């Protein structure tokens, strides 16, 4: 599904990715974890073609992504910071993204799910952070693509919306989609993900199930397992 080979990326003098090799197979929820500045977002942005690698190759659904933009029809992406043009209304933004990408009717269902109806005629500049994140989620999920990438999807959400999001993600997984998530909320990751990809200092440190991680680190629970990796590596 997504194959990353020997990926290197440098920002100025800062070598962020140092030879990442990663294969994400079809179907399932993959959590990309790592300490701050370990290169999670850079890795995701490289898959999206937003960051251009210095070395290495990325293949998405058997298509090399270099100098290509059509493969992004198959990817839905939720960016970390949602900041939209403040003069636009929610309704207009959704219409515009549909116009730029492709027609869909799934937005109605998602608007209902996140109870966004009262905000449709409000300008984006007037919305709270959590409501913006809900709009962001609608924009992401409405196209129903086989690959979904979520960068910190829970930020700013209230507990009820969080539950709805979890259900939504599980429902998407049941459709056979491949979902990549980054998050700092360990309980969320533990509950939802099938596999963990742990990045440390620009390399894949661990890839496998949570159970495997616990055995490897010899820790009884997930949070301690992550903590033990970090303290063992002085990160």
């Amino acid at each position, binding site marked *: 599904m997504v194959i990353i080979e020997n990926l290197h990326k440098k920002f100025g003098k800062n070598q962020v990715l140092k030879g990442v090799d990663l294969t994400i197979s079809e179907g399932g929820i993959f959590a990309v974890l790592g300490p701050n500045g370990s290169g999670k977002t850079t890795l995701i942005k490289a898959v999206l073609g937003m960051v251009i690698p210095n070395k290495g190759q990325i293949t998405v659904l058997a298509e090399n992504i270099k100098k290509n*933009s059509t493969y992004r029809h198959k990817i839905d992406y939720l*960016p970390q910071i949602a900041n939209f043009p403040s003069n636009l209304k929610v309704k207009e933004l959704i219409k515009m993204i549909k116009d730029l*990408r492709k027609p869909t009717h799934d937005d109605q269902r998602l608007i209902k799910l996140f109870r966004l109806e009262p905000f449709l005629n409000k300008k984006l500049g007037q919305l709270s952070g959590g409501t913006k994140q809900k709009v962001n989620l609608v924009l992401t999920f409405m196209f129903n693509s086989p690959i979904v990438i979520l960068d910190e999807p829970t930020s700013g959400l209230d507990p009820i919306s969080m539950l709805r999001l979890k259900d939504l993600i599980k429902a998407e997984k049941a459709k056979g989609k491949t979902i990549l998530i980054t998050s700092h909320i360990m309980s969320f990751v533990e509950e939802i993900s099938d596999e963990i990809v742990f990045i440390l200092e620009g390399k894949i440190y661990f890839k496998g199930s949570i159970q495997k991680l616990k055995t490897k680190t010899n820790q009884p629970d997930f949070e301690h397992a992550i903590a033990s990796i970090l303290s063992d590596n002085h990160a």
Partner: protein
Amino acid sequence: MRLRQYYPITMLKILKYSFYDLMRSRWSYVYFAFYLLLGTVLLFLNNDLSKAVITLMNVIIVLVPLIGTIFGVMYYYNSKEFTELLLAQPLKRSSIFLGQYLGVVLSLTMSLILGLGIPFVFYGLFESSAIWDFSLLLITGAFLTLIFTALAFNIALSNENKIKGFGYAILLWLFLAVIYDGLFLMTLIMFEDYPLDKVSLFGTMLNPIDLSRTLILLKLDISALLGYTGAVFKQFFGTSFGLIVSFVMLTVWVVMPVLRIVFKSKNKDF
């Protein structure tokens, strides 16, 4: 092949949305109102269309580049996160940035043309012989907007830091609008014993603001205002060929930075 047909449409869509976005911003109206006021006041003070055109030229040639530079830089930085959202969509980078660039240019040019056009039309522009001079003034204004907005996008694309970007943009404007002329004049005085025709010719062409001024004065055919370079220009090329040469140079001034926008945006990390 499908992609090639599809490409200009996405660019036009992005142009449309950037334009709508700007049309709702307060600053577009401030800019429009300023020109409206300027046009009206000039006509009342001068009571003569041709004289108003000359005064207007002096204002436009300095102000349009300033507004183009500031708006360009401001728009780029303000829509940064939104641009990132667009970049994750199946859209070509060049169509995103060119669409945004043309959206800014279109809204600025519209403010200029409507703001100045309305008072002049009411004053009786269509019955006046000044209509061609006035049109040329607006065309030059449009060129200057195209050039300086493109330069601003270049600066913004190359500088992640907003403050630095703004700083360089203002410096660029200050250099081309004010400092360049001073340096140019000093060079001419220092080397007055040498033949300076060619030097001054090149000097004019290398600055879009000087080029625009020469272009308009050539058309107005006012020798007293042409100055040394204008006179050289006229002598060297003649009036009509001089006009063509200046238009070609202005086009080059648009094409170069636009090409760099395309190139730079292709290789940039977001």
